[in-house]
C-alpha cells in the first residue's frame, strides 16, 4: 500500500449534500440519525465525518435519497 492510499484510508469519509438537488425529504435523517438531523425547514444538518462503523449506513442514506442529493466523499 502506498503512502497516498494509506492516508486516504485514514481520513474519515464525509457526507456532502448537493444543495440545489436536496428537497428536504428527510430520508437521510431517518436512515442515519447518528449523523444527520433536520433543521427547522426540514433540510439536513450533518455532524462531522463518517466513522468506519457508520459507513454502511452512510452508503445506504446516499442510495436512499429520492433526489440523489447526498454523496459519500472519501
Amino acid at each position, binding site marked *: 500500500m502506498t503512502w497516498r492510499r494509506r492516508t486516504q484510508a485514514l481520513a474519515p469519509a464525509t457526507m456532502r*449534500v*448537493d*444543495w*440545489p438537488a*436536496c428537497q*428536504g425529504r428527510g430520508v437521510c435523517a431517518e436512515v442515519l440519525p447518528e449523523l444527520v438531523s433536520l433543521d*427547522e*425547514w*426540514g*433540510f439536513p444538518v450533518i455532524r462531522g465525518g463518517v466513522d468506519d462503523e457508520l459507513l454502511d449506513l452512510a452508503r445506504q442514506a446516499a442510495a436512499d435519497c429520492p433526489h440523489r442529493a447526498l454523496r459519500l466523499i472519501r
Partner: protein
Amino acid sequence: MTSLATVEPAPARCGMPFFSPPAQVMVDPGPMLLADLDDGPSLAAHRSRFGGVGAAGPGSAAPESVEQLAQWAEAVGLAGRGGAGFPFHVKLRAAAAGPRGRRPIVVVNLAEGEPLSGKDTALARCVPHRVLDGAALTAGLLGAREVHVVVPRERPLVEESMALAVAERQAAGERLAWRLTVVGPGFVSGQARAVIEALSGRPGLPVTAWQPEAVSGLRGRPTLLSNAETWAHVWAVVQRGPAGYAALGTSSEPGTTLLSLPGADEASVGVGTVAVVEVELGTSWAAPMGEVAHDVPVLLGGFHGTWTTASTLTGMPVSRVALRDGGLALGAGVAWPLPPGVCPVDVTASITAYLAGESAQRCGPCRNGLPALAAEVGALARGVSADYTRIEHLAGLVERRGACAHPDGTARLVRSLVSAFGDEVAAHRAGRCDVTRRDLTRPEVAQ
C-alpha cells in the same frame, strides 16, 4: 478624473448603500492598470503603446510556458480579485494539468453583481485590452482556443465596451475564438459556477461544484475563470516582468489593487456614484478614504463583507494580510464609509433584506434561512426584537450549506455588525438608535 456615462437612472437613497448598479462610475488614473487613460480604450492605442499580445516591455522577456507564468504569478502573490482571493498560479497549474486532448477554456468574468463595486466597469470602459491581453496570452500558453468574455446584464455599457473590444480583436485577425455572453441580472449571477451554467446554455444560477472549474468546468473541460482585474494583473506581470511588477507595492505584497469608494463628488454621494481608484498595496488607507471622521462605520468588501470603522482602517495599510489579521477582508475591493447620521444597524437590515431577495432560491437553507435572518435583523433595526440568539442561530444555520457562498457572505455581514458595532446593536435592542437619535418604541415621531 475621468467621468463615465450613466449606467442606470440614479436611485435616491440618501447616503445608504444602493441596490442597483452605480448610476455613474468615476475613474482616477492609477499607477499601473489605470495608467495612461488618455490613450483611450482602442486596440490601436493599446498596441502602439504596449505591442502585441503577451509582449513584454523593455527590460523583460515574455513567459515561454504556462509553468513560467505560474512561477511569476506565484512570485508576485497574484490572488484572484473577484472576492475570494484564490491564488491565480494554483488555478493556472490545475488548468494546465488536464488530460491531453481536453483543450482548456479561458473565461474573463466582468459580471460584478455587487452594486457598490465599479472596478470591472472601470476596466471595461477604460482599458479593456489590458484585461483581454491577460486572457489572450494565458490562452496562448495553455493552448486554449476559446475565450469567453462574460458581462452583466445590469451594466449595458460594460457589454458595449467589451463587444467593441472583442470586435476589434477579431478584425485584427487574432486567432482565438472570442465569445461574449451576457449573464444575470442578479447579485449571484457572477459566481463562477453560475457563469459556467450560463455559458452552458442553462439558467445562470449556482450549482454544486464537485470539482474545481479549473479541473472540470465548461463542457467538462479545464476552465480557467478569473475576474477582469485578475486578468489585467496577469497582463501587467507579463508586460513589466515580475521584477518590474514588484517595483510597486511592498516586498511581501507586490503590485496594486483597485478599490471602489463612494463617488468623490459630495453632492452625488449615495445616489449611486462609485469612484474607482488604483492604489499600491501597502499604502495608507488615509489616501483613498480621504477626510472621514474616525468613528464612521465602513463597509469593507461590499454586501458580503465586514463592518469596521474608519479609524481601524486608516491605522493600517491597504494589505490583504493586514486585513486578514484584523479579521477583515477586502473582498472585491469595496470600501464604503457611511455618511453622518446613517446607522449601520439600519443599513445591515436593508442589505440583508436585499440579499435574501437575491437568493437564487435553489438551496433550501438559503431559500428559507436568508428571509428568516433578514426578518430578525429587520426587527432588531426597528427595535422590536431583543432576541439576538436567534440571529446567531440563523447565521450559523445558513453557513456552508449551499452551492455557493451567498448565504455565507450574508451571515458574515450580519455577524460583523455585532462584532464591530456591539454598542449600536445593544442600543437597538434597548429600543433606541444612538446614531439617528430615534426612540424606536415611538417610530411615528422619528426625525
